[in-house]
């Protein structure tokens, strides 16, 4: 069972106050802490669990404009066997199509049974790369995967639909799955683990190694472009209740009462 997992590094914006850059096309990332995309992390964990159960190998792949060695080291520490990073400044501002193209170029020459990506990324949330990649690779795929069972030359997966419903789908291998959070509990990666993983194979390639042309890369190649970002006004829609906690609680209670749900 050879599995390729595509990973991405994203800034942690949950607790942060975001500021939009002067050109209006990105957010200021200087103060933000970056880490592996939440969905990708579940994907790496799932790949490693399958490998531990069935043998084989896990290769982590990243396509990035930044020096994301630490991202791949983390994947190696989690249990991936090797890592490939394609770093090129021209990936900045790429849409899913460009990223999938680059990934396709890496993966097409590698042996694989499964390719995993996260369902989507925490930053842009496109939820496209896995599907496009499957199209390029001409293999069947399933998105929003919450359970995987490997059978003889095929996998049976659960896809998460709406309204607490699941869809069970069978895919012939090779196949692409985009992994949904909650499929497993990703393991902790210790500092010692990362240090030990330094011995594992990590390949850094550039776009010319992949035979990618300029037309296939970067902002110019992207079909979908960001025109501008804006911050939603805080508390739009909601009437913000002010006062002491006690006063607010009194107001809330009277609101509930007025809706006929309390007393």
């Amino acid at each position, binding site marked *: 069972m050879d599995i390729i997992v595509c990973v991405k590094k994203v*800034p942690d914006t949950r*607790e942060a*106050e*975001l500021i939009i850059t002067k050109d209006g096309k990105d*957010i200021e990332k200087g103060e933000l802490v970056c880490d592996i995309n939440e969905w990708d992390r579940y994907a790496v964990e799932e790949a490693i669990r399958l490998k531990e159960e069935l043998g084989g190998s896990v290769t982590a792949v990243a396509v990035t404009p930044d020096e994301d060695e630490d991202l791949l080291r983390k994947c190696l520490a989690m249990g991936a066997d090797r890592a490939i990073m394609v770093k090129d400044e021209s990936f900045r501002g790429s849409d*899913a*199509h460009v990223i*999938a193209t680059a990934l396709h170029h890496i993966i097409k020459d590698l042996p694989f049974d499964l390719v995993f990506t996260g*369902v989507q990324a925490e930053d842009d*949330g*496109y*939820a*496209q790369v896995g*599907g*496009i990649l*499957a*199209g390029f690779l001409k293999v*069947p*795929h*399933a*998105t*929003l995967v919450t359970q995987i069972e490997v059978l003889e030359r095929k996998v049976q997966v*659960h*896809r*998460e*639909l*709406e*309204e*607490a*419903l*699941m*869809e069970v*789908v*069978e*895919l*012939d291998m090779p196949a692409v799955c985009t992994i949904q*959070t*909650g499929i497993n509990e990703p393991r902790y990666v210790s500092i010692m683990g990362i240090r030990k993983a330094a011995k594992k194979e990590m390949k850094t390639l550039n776009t010319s190694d992949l035979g990618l042309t300029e037309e296939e890369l970067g902002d110019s190649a992207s*079909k*979908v*472009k*960001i*025109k501008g*970002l804006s*911050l*939603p006004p805080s*508390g739009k*829609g*909601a*009437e*913000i209740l002010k006062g002491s906690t006690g006063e607010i*609680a009194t*107001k*809330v*209670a009277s*609101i*509930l009462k007025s809706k006929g*749900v*309390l*007393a």
Partner: protein
Amino acid sequence: MREILVLAEHRKGVLRDITWEMLSLGKELAEKMEAQLTTVLPGYEVKSLADELSTQADLVLLVEDERLQNFSSMAYQQVLSTLITTRKPIITLIGHTACGIDLAPGLAAALGMPLATDCLSLTLTEKELTAVRQIYGGKVNAEVACSCEKGCIATIRAGVVSPWGEETRKGKVEVIQSPSLEGISRQRFIEYVEAAIGGVDITQADIIVAIGRGIQDKENIPLAEELAKALGGTLACSRPIVDKKWLPKAHQVGTSGKTVRPKAYIALGISGAFQHIVGMKDSGVIIAVNKDPRAPIFEVADYGIVCDLFDFMPVLKEKAKELLQRR
């Protein structure tokens, strides 16, 4: 004739809400672009659904095939790519649902078309599609654009467009021969499975107290539980709480959980990812408590409280107890 194409989404013999929402959006675009609003209905023995659709579309393309009985991204892709290639619509609208997420990217790749996913609103000109999306977990709005000269595809977030709800068209239904559907056997639908539901049914509750990441620790859940109890309500949660296995799936509100419409919905420490908002936005009154004044939850809430939920919960609990005692 220029065309706006909408993929009709249905499951188990019922058209899904997103379809009506997209038709509503499609109608707007069609009127502006002076185009025909066409909907595609792939399926098997779904004539009645086609008739339903015809009330809000100019044309319903019914593609009937036994192999289209259940959604299959591979089969749907072939149906749509054949139609798009021949009919050349300005834009194809697909729901940003479990179905659309599975279908749209591969379709776009096959057609070499730009794809804007998870759009909240769309603006179309002769040359360009502009879409508003949310990024960074809903904390930032992004305006994205792509060319529509050679056609484009957009997936639409569920619940952001209001459906018309009444007959606006008297379209005709055209039965289209299904394409050959080669190679689709590599992807096989097996069955639907209901997620295990525990003893609770949050859809029946009048008051829901829902918790999110802000609860911080499993140990803190009893505090929210007590509040729910004091209010005579039911405890629910957002997806991360279920991912962490702090509460069973049955408590989850949102696209992959339950859709709820209680009289009152109190969101504690829920930032408001759209997957969650979709599941609760139709509640009678929404009260959100969050430390972050920019949390997206405040966009759908009727009342917002910017404070630490651990300060707030016990006070409200006492207030509720007081009121109920007085009664």
